[in-house]
């Protein structure tokens, strides 16, 4: 039966829509990213808008990052201790905890936490602005929504998520060390001596470089989802949820890609 007769699309139409929808979303997201990068260089964001976003993204995220970092350090110490003790390598606990922290878990878990806190908040805020026509109003009043809304959030995430990752790393190292020394009775000298011996600057930089891309991914996904939020409370909620899910997947993908590239760089620098 034809579409006109039933009022319902046929299986070929449904299949076409299933295939086309992700293609359209990826294409639209790519254009959105390109427009954001162009506007970053075309005109500086207004300082009061940028500072407000820096405060919201950076200062307000500090407590959650400190707590996350601290617990990552302690959990790593607990998990690694038993296995190292079986091999009588407890004194190497510092190198294992700190290496894992600065290279992998610190950046990834801090970014995951920030995708939930910062990303969802951005998506919900922009989503609400979309459904209440505030983004249309910006355009009607001569402001470019990408320049006014996206660029400050993008810069905030790209600049501050690496700094927040460093904060998470530092607190993870401090908490991991305190727990190892006071509860697991690891010698403090060997804890730091092994850390210093095994961890190079490249390990520290790799974590920070990755977090730069994590920040960009969180900001772009959150702003894009917010801009495309559907009407109603459910639409805004969906945008926030999608932001966390898509950001998390992108964080893991970037982490994998960066791991591959940086391991080659490491081999190239230390033949």
């Amino acid at each position: 039966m034809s579409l006109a007769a039933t009022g319902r699309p046929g299986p070929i139409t449904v299949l076409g829509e299933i295939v086309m929808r992700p293609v359209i979303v990826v294409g639209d997201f790519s254009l959105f990213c390109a427009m954001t990068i162009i506007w970053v260089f075309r005109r500086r964001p207004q300082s009061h808008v940028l500072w407000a976003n820096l405060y919201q993204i950076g200062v307000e995220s500090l407590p959650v990052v400190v707590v996350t970092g601290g617990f990552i350090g302690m959990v790593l110490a607990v998990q690694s201790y038993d296995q190292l003790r079986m091999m009588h390598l407890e004194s190497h606990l510092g190198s294992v905890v700190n290496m894992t922290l600065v290279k992998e878990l610190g950046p990834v878990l801090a970014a995951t936490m920030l995708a939930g806190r910062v990303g969802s908040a951005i998506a919900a805020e922009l989503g609400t602005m979309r459904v209440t026509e505030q983004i249309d109003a910006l355009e009607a009043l001569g402001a470019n929504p990408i320049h006014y809304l996206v660029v400050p959030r993008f810069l905030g995430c790209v600049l501050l998520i690496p700094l927040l990752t460093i904060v998470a790393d530092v607190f993870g190292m401090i908490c991991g060390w305190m727990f190892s020394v006071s509860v697991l009775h690891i010698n403090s000298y060997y804890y730091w001596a092994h850390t210093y011996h095994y961890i190079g600057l490249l390990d520290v930089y790799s974590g920070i470089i990755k977090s730069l891309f994590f920040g960009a991914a969180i900001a772009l996904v959150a702003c894009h989802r917010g801009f495309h939020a559907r009407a109603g409370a459910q639409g805004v909620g969906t945008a926030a949820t999608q932001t966390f899910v898509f950001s998390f997947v992108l964080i893991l993908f970037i982490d994998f890609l960066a791991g591959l590239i940086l391991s080659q760089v490491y081999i190239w620098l230390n033949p």
Partner: protein
Amino acid sequence: MNSRTYHPEPLFELMGVSRSFGSQHVLREIDLAVYPGETLVLIGESGCGKSVTTKLLAGMLKPSAGQVHWHGQNVATMSEAQKRDGRLRIGYLFQSGALFDSMNVFDNVSFGLRQMGRASATDIREIVMQRLRDVGLTSDVARKMPAELSGGMRKRVGLARALALSPEIMIYDEPTTGLDPVMSDVINELILSIRDQGQVTSIVVTHDMHTVKKVADRVVMLFPLARLEGFEQQKIFEGTVEEAFHSSDPRVYSFVHGDASSRLHELNAA
């Protein structure tokens, strides 16, 4: 009904414009011209594409097919700077007011002026206070946040914000929806005084027949695509207020007279 003469050269023109959102088709091959100085009222059932039409006219949406012309020039061929300048000549009152939640009333009304960056702080202050007075609000409202305002006040602040840039064209998207009859009439009077004081061309989207009778020079009625038969024109009426109220088309007649009998019959049959 107001008797005004139409200039032959349209200010805005939609030429065979269609617009879809994904698989949802909202507008199909619409032709519409807006002439300088007139007040055009768009009516039609919810979901027929009235607001989408105004957003296409204001350049906030791009047509899926067809052309939008401003002063005879195709918007699609304009540079970003030309489009921005064109948009700044259009004031838009959104259905909900669309005030920026994070800013107080003063910052909302002054937003467009600050974006343009052509006026000094003192001038901006004067313009904002004058616009608030124009819409019947006192200066102490300037410090309030949008959440502290009533529906009518939000609409009036939205109107003051749109007027701050002294637009040549005002678009009102359901200006009286959700307001009590007195406040609705206040808004209608404001539409008339803005038109008469500043020689402003107005486009009004409304369901309110009192507004239609009071402000319209010309009425256009759109019909939801989903309920049209075959390739029938989506613009089912274009004419004066009198013609709309005496239309022989039962769809127009029942809409302007608020007669639900044919619609109820249609719903029962479905």
